[in-house]
């Protein structure tokens, strides 16, 4: 395995994210595996932002530890990130911009001074063009062929004016040539080869999966880190025939989606924890009225407004408990964009099959990081048929008919003879309320139990139909790391690193965090020699769920709630402690 990491740092407004995206694509187009981490703050200009792209000849699942090349647009970037540059690496900067804090440059790391501002001035008075020169220099040392970078820049700026494209190409090429004249290509630069890969963020994968599943309606209120689902959907709404509605608030967003679903289309809403907290009451209404609904909950650091641009897995308890009373739900937790694509499709299938809400749990790290995905991983499922085929006409039609599965025949407005009222009050098979004059009288009391039982029976079906727990990696292993959602990525990389140090570990995956499939999970947990629970929250919320459902304690934990993604080195260090403590 050969890999290289490139990091860009500066202030918000410097264009760091677009540099990151371009270098990521430069690797992916050469068939390399890549992962791009966009670290930013809740400010539009200023502050400190950085982007790291890691590229490898072999599959990688996280941003890794450290970097090889650092292009710094300000002294603060050098202060913070230069110590992370590995031996043999290079710090790229322009001495016209700032004085290098030399004491921060580790031994064995070179410095390359590139006149990015002077290059920019050749083309335009717009100083931001310096970036293109820096990008060129970094790409050169990372072993990216000029032709590849050229095409990526051209495609990225393709919609802008010819001048902008030409200036960027010119400045990049100057930076590229300058770097090669004054420094050598990094000796760990991975060679390309193989078919170009796709680069997807988790949110793009979710949006793409929703579209593939036949989602026709998305209502959403802007909230980091879920907003880019709406952005992608809105940009493609006319091509795909999807109505995208920015609602006045999250209350409206979820109720619109429920209305649209009731009206006969597959519908979704997406938000983060704060918005989801507002959606809670309506989530229960979807459960009570048995209206299919997909809700994406892309978590960020809480509580309250928390750290809006930082990641966490702190909303599991909220997702598990959202809504007064009890109703069936499923929570899917994909680990990476390929899984997120499939999970979105699965979420729509489950929501429709069981006529109940399905939550798709993401988080900022998955939603906004860039991952390469093989094109074959984005298989297009058959287009879904129209929904206007579900219920049979008949005089005895009962929308909420009591069935062994709990699922009743669904009718849609517009179908003659099947009219019913969907009620958020408790109701009978016909949808007639049992909440007023029939409540508390014997017939109503018995019907209430029948209706609750009917709805809750869907949980069994959901558990049978949803993806089940499994183990990734070697079995048996000295250590089984239990992880869900985006934490799986860095855990996978940690497992590989542990292997290199002679420790055999594997990952216990739980793609459906609810309903927890206890029959499948318990044998896997029992088979583990020792476990390590890894979660991005304070209290080990998933560990608590496992204990509640299985009685099995996961005593060894790595819990993190600093807002930063997991680094493989953190997991490796904790794993070694656990293995040693247990005489491994």
């Amino acid at each position, binding site marked *: 395995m050969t890999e290289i990491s490139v990091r860009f740092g500066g202030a918000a407004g410097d264009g760091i994210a677009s540099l990151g995206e371009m270098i990521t694509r430069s690797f992916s187009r050469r068939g390399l595996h890549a992962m791009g981490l966009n670290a930013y703050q809740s400010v539009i200009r200023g502050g400190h932002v950085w982007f790291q792209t890691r590229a490898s000849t072999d599959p990688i699942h996280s941003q890794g530890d450290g970097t090889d090349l650092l292009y710094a647009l300000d002294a603060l970037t050098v202060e913070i990130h230069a110590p992370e540059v590995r031996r043999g690496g290079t710090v790229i900067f322009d001495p016209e911009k700032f004085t290098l804090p030399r004491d921060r440059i580790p031994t064995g790391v070179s410095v390359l001074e590139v006149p990015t501002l002077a290059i920019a001035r050749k083309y335009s008075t717009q100083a931001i063009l310096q970036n293109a020169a820096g990008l060129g220099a970094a790409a050169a040392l990372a072993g990216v062929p000029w032709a590849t970078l050229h095409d990526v820049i051209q495609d990225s700026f393709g919609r802008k004016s010819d001048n902008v494209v030409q200036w960027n190409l010119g400045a990049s090429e100057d930076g590229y040539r300058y770097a090669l004249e004054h420094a050598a290509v990094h000796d760990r630069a991975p060679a390309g080869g193989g078919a*170009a*890969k*796709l680069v*997807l963020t988790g949110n*793009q994968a979710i949006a793409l999966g929703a*579209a*593939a599943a*036949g*989602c*026709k*309606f998305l209502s959403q209120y802007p909230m980091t880190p879920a907003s880019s689902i709406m952005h992608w959907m809105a940009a493609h709404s*006319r*091509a*795909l*025939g999807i*109505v995208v*509605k920015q609602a*006045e608030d999250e*209350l*409206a967003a979820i*109720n*619109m*989606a*429920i*209305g*649209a*679903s*009731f*009206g*006969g*289309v597959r*519908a979704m809403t997406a938000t983060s924890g704060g918005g989801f907290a507002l959606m809670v*009451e*309506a989530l229960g*209404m979807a459960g009570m*009225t048995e209206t299919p609904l997909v809700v994406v909950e892309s978590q960020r650091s809480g509580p309250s407004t928390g750290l809006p641009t930082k990641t966490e897995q702190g909303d599991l308890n909220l997702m598990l408990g959202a809504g007064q009373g009890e109703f069936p739900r499923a929570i899917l937790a994909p680990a990476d964009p390929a899984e997120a694509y499939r999970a979105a499709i699965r979420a729509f299938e489950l929501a429709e099959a069981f006529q109940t809400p399905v939550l798709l749990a993401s988080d900022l790290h998955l939603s906004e990081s860039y991952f390469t995905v093989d094109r074959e991983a984005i298989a*297009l499922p058959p*287009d879904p*048929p*129209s*929904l*206007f*085929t579900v*219920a*049979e*006409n008949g005089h005895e039609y009962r929308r909420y008919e009591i069935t062994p599965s709990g699922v009743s025949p669904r009718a*849609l*407005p*517009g*179908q*003659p*003879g099947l*009219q*019913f*009222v*969907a*009620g*958020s*009050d408790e109701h009978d098979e016909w949808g*007639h309320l049992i909440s007023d004059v029939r409540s508390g009288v014997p017939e109503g009391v018995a019907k209430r139990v029948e209706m609750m039982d009917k709805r809750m029976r869907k949980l069994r079906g959901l558990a049978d139909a949803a993806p089940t727990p499994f183990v990734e990696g070697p079995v048996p292993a000295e250590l089984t790391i239990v992880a869900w959602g985006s934490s799986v990525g860095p855990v996978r990389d940690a497992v590989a690193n542990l292997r290199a140090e002679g420790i055999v570990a594997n990952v216990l995956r739980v793609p459906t965090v609810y309903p927890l499939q206890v029959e499948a999970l318990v044998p896997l947990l029992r088979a583990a020699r020792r476990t390590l629970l890894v979660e991005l929250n304070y209290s080990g919320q998933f560990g608590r769920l496992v204990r509640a459902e299985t009685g099995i304690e996961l005593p060894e934990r790595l819990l993190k709630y600093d807002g930063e993604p997991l680094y493989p080195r953190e997991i490796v260090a904790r794993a070694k402690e656990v293995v040693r403590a247990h005489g491994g």
Partner: protein
Amino acid sequence: MADSGAVAAVPTTDHPLPLVGKSTVKPTWCPGCGDYGVVAAIEMAVKRLRLPSHEVVIVSGIGCSSNLPHFLSAYGFHGIHGRVLPVAEGIRWANHELTVIGTGGDGDGFGIGCGHFVHAMRRNVKICYVTMDNEIYGLTTGQASPTSELGHRTKSTPFGVIERPIDPIALALASGATYVARGFSGDVKHLADLVANGLTHRGFAFVDVMSPCVTYNKINTFDFFRQRVYKLESAGHDPSDLVAAWQRALEWGEKIPIGLFYKTDRPTYEELEEVLSAGPLARQPAGLRAHPEILDEFV
């Protein structure tokens, strides 16, 4: 492709499909409740327009009046408190061939749901929204509502309301509503006209109905309104005149205008949403297979 969504399993028949009428469920409102007049007016309006039961959806929230969908033979969605309009909007955007009627009370629409009310009007979504405004919370046994008058003593305001009431008509005018009317449940025929015209209106039609609560509101009673209401159409009001509409909207006291305050012609949200020009969303093809090129943007 539009045919792929054809209604399944419906026997062809020479008989016209049933129109909206009463359902098998009897209203549970208090005897004498103003809402009986409203359900009667809605039934008259949809019958006059000969709307088949299956093409009408009546959406409501929570409150006494929000039980209304159960009493008519159309499709219904009886949702949670205050969310009538977003549900109704979602239904319209999923299938804009449906006639969508929103119903609810003043607490539902102007209290907990007030944000949605304003936005639905600026969007001009084609929904006929009929509020049964009794200036009190009835189902929760008599607390002040957003339209309770100053000084009104209720269980939650034993010393009298000290907030100015919301004026739904003025709020609607300010929000860009294109059809703004006030009815009185004591004049069912007049109300039915307002609802019927609202149902055929191009866009959002708001009909605020003075619908007395005979149990908890001893101020705004049937007699209170009978002594005060007058009809705008008999008073020479020009509903195309926004300034005149504002002047009438501010009238409340010895004289209370009912009828059509304002009506204007503006494209609906559904007309302006390009995606819906291909027909009802629910009957449009879905999926990605026709667009494999979309993956190219990720290379």
